[in-house]
């Protein structure tokens, strides 16, 4: 099936099998390997990308469902050479160890801050509770998101 989608501002057209998952389209067909394949069951969130303006778990979205839509992945998070404040927060607060869950975490965090610029630590935890990090114990991820919120508030 033909699918046309805009990923990180670039339009791609591909002929894909109807069963192809969005995560595999991004990784294997488009070479955007920053999003990771973690569980197949929508539980871990390593594959979180934005479909239009909403985070989705791309391991349970068919590529054809993205036809005509915009996708944002970790590769599109920075503004040119300038890292997104969420990315900066993760670096500043040691919010990652192995880094495998990090792209998905950051995309959810970016969405959260767009919709709630001043979240409480509980709201951050709730926002990322559909995603799993096995390394950090989450505390520094929470700090990283709060750091970004403060940075964006000019703090």
């Amino acid at each position, binding site marked *: 099936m033909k699918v046309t989608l805009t990923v990180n501002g670039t339009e791609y057209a591909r002929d894909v*099998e109807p*069963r*192809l998952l969005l995560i*595999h389209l991004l*990784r*294997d067909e488009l*070479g*955007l*390997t*920053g*999003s*990771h*394949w*973690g*569980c*197949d*069951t929508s*539980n*871990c969130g*390593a594959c979180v990308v934005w479909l239009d303006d909403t985070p989705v778990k791309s391991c349970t979205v068919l590529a054809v469902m993205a036809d005509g839509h915009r996708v944002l*992945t*970790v*590769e599109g*998070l*920075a503004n040119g050479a300038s*890292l997104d404040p969420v*990315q900066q927060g*993760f*670096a*500043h607060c*040691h919010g*990652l*160890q*192995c*880094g*495998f*869950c*990090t*792209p998905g975490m*950051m995309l959810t965090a970016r969405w959260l801050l767009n919709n709630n610029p001043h979240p409480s*630590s509980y709201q*951050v*935890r*709730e926002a*990322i*509770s*559909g*995603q*799993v*990090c*096995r*390394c*950090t*114990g*989450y*505390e*520094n*991820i*929470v700090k990283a998101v709060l750091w970004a919120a403060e940075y964006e508030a000019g703090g």
Partner: protein
Amino acid sequence: MAQIAAQRYTGASIRRSEDPRLLTGRGRYVDDIKLPGMLHAAFVRSPLAHARVLSVDVCAARALPGVVAAFTGADLEAMTVPGPDALSTLMGAAGPTPEFTLLATDKVRFAGDPVAVVIAESRYLAEDGCELVEVDYDELPPVASADFALDPGSPPLFANLGDNIARSRSRNEFGDIAATFAGADRVYDFRIDVHRHQNVPMEGRGCVASYDPDLGVLTMHAATQSVHVAKIAVTMRLGMEPDKVRVLAGDIGGSFGLKIGASREELATAAASRALGRPVKWVEDRTENLTASGQAREESFNVRAAVSNDGDLLGLDVTMVIDTGSYPGMGGMVPAIIEAMLPGPYKLAALGFESVGVTTNKAPYVAYRGPWASETFVRERVLDLIAKDLGLDPLEIRLRNAAPRTDPPAVMLTGRPLAGVTTRESLERVAKLADIPAFRRRQAQARAQGRYLGIGVATFIEAAPGPRSPEGASGPMGSESMRLRLDEDGFVVLFTGQMPHGQSHQTTLAQIAADEFGVPFEQVRVVVGDTDVVPFGLTGGSRSATMTGGVTLHGARRLKAKVLDFASHLMEVSAMDLQITDGNVGVRGDPASAVAVSEIARQAASGEFGADVDARLEVEAVFDGGEGGWSGGSHCAVVEVDVETGIVTVERYVAVEDCGVLINPAVVEGQIRGGVAQGIGAVLLERSAYDADGNFQSATFMDYLLPTACDVPRIEIEHLQTVPLDADVNFRGVGEGGMIVAPPTIVNAIEDALSPFGVRIYEQHLPPARILELIATAGSAQPSGSAQPGRSAQPGGR
């Protein structure tokens, strides 16, 4: 006593040099590798726990368009060199070695055992091919429990073993068991169970094997804790010369002990690549990871404890059974470490330790963060049970029994000196931070309102690296090698056999080298993950802080001496008068004399010098761990148990840790928090569950529950850095401690919360349903001071 010198980078939470690539999607994990002509492997796995394989028919799979090949177990045996598991061989596993094939041949031994592999143009097509493979099985009675495995009548998993005993029963005694128990006021009997759970890194196992038929060289891109151990496995199994095998590794999405060496599937992938002359990728999906990558723990302990009326723990006599699953691996080594560590920081007079390991129809046994952790769980649980019976405070019984810091240090009953161990200090400090008296008041108020709060304390020590033996002959963890070089661009380059998978070595080793050599942090390059250039090594056992940190320090010192020696010829100044600061070599007290180290390196590379000048600015260093030392600490948890739902909430968690000198506090604390989170998961959520027929019950993340951000509290950490033992290297490992001590800390807190119900806990896994059962069956089952059958205490006297 050594002084800790002030350093520029060491001790600071330097931002990680790993992060820029990982934060922008430019990390290079094994599944990100795409080679020209690359094929994809998928495995057909047994749906049965135990069965004879009558036939495997791969014809239909081979005929499917897009499928390039399909191999059975027999095919793989013909394509490789039969022999035992390389890892067991390397680790010197005792006793007869179970039969080992890459894929099942005559029988399957667990639900998930691979029986065939299909190689196709895409993973989707390979999985389609798997659907077409027909396997006929003749089902055998499953051996799904250790109890059944111990029954001589159970059908042996391995014909060559003759029974299901993987590690034969053995017993060792330290001190005078008979006299200690005879002289004790009280003898308790407990049975403590630790359940099966597993690593679950976010990235599963995987590799890309690429055989070049023209060169006869196999290159394997692996996700492994040691490229060299993986290489040994490949060379052994594929029967290749070491110079024809190269193992590379890039970023790795966690491991926690899982990815040591090369797995059966990875070796099969390598064999397939060689047979087909094309690159082949295999990356496991989550169901494969949960079902077949490996699991850990599942140990039971019958514990007899000899105790005085005042609460002195005089002796332990322990019988351990370990369920090592279908392919024993690491399981054979665990009992010996548990035996050695069982006394912990306490002054026992006698220890008896008997153990036996069995094979069962469950997934293979692998190392998981603190593989011996059950020694701490058993000891710290037993202390609380005894304290409760004697009416002692849990803190008091620990302080009473912890060996005091003396000179010379107290020696563990099993042989190692407790040099520099700060158990008492960390216990007292964590109790103060948690403010136990204030908590008790709050607890009483909450109980009056029908809310059940509890507090738990536990302490541990870890041989990371452990003390130098009294004879001083060998280092505590063997030795660690490193090659260091000053490149012409002025970079100090470290070649290490460490294979980081989240531990931040690229940052921490650079901090040490930068300080010791005298260059900016940004001017150090850490090279990992290529068997052609790095020395032998392994990331595991919490060894890298001391061993690799130490070899970095000593290696950088040697390299610096060599560079200064060379510079002294160039600059015609005595090396004694030269120093390196901020990347420049200069005469002390004469800033104008400064020459960039890059310039020195360029001259060394291009100039011609006499035989008396060594212009090769490279050194090899080996470090034996120096004086070594222990890491350890005490943790305290406050929990609330909802007695209607059984849900446990960890309200507060405080850790007081002593890992000597911190290289990078943020990294250290990240390791501690991550370990504690896994420990919380192990108690409240995670279980690798099998039913009575050996069917795996937790093959997805909907069944194997991992802690999320709402399950793990903020973890407060304080560091003690009290006792440097070595003149230079007092960094100690923290990779495993959190996972070792968090389970008893949490369980102790839960039991405290449920003490109004008379609940006594003898197990580690406490999901809500089990909490409700414990409450429902308490009281009648656990009256203090009377003998109890089965899994219960038999407190009281003789």
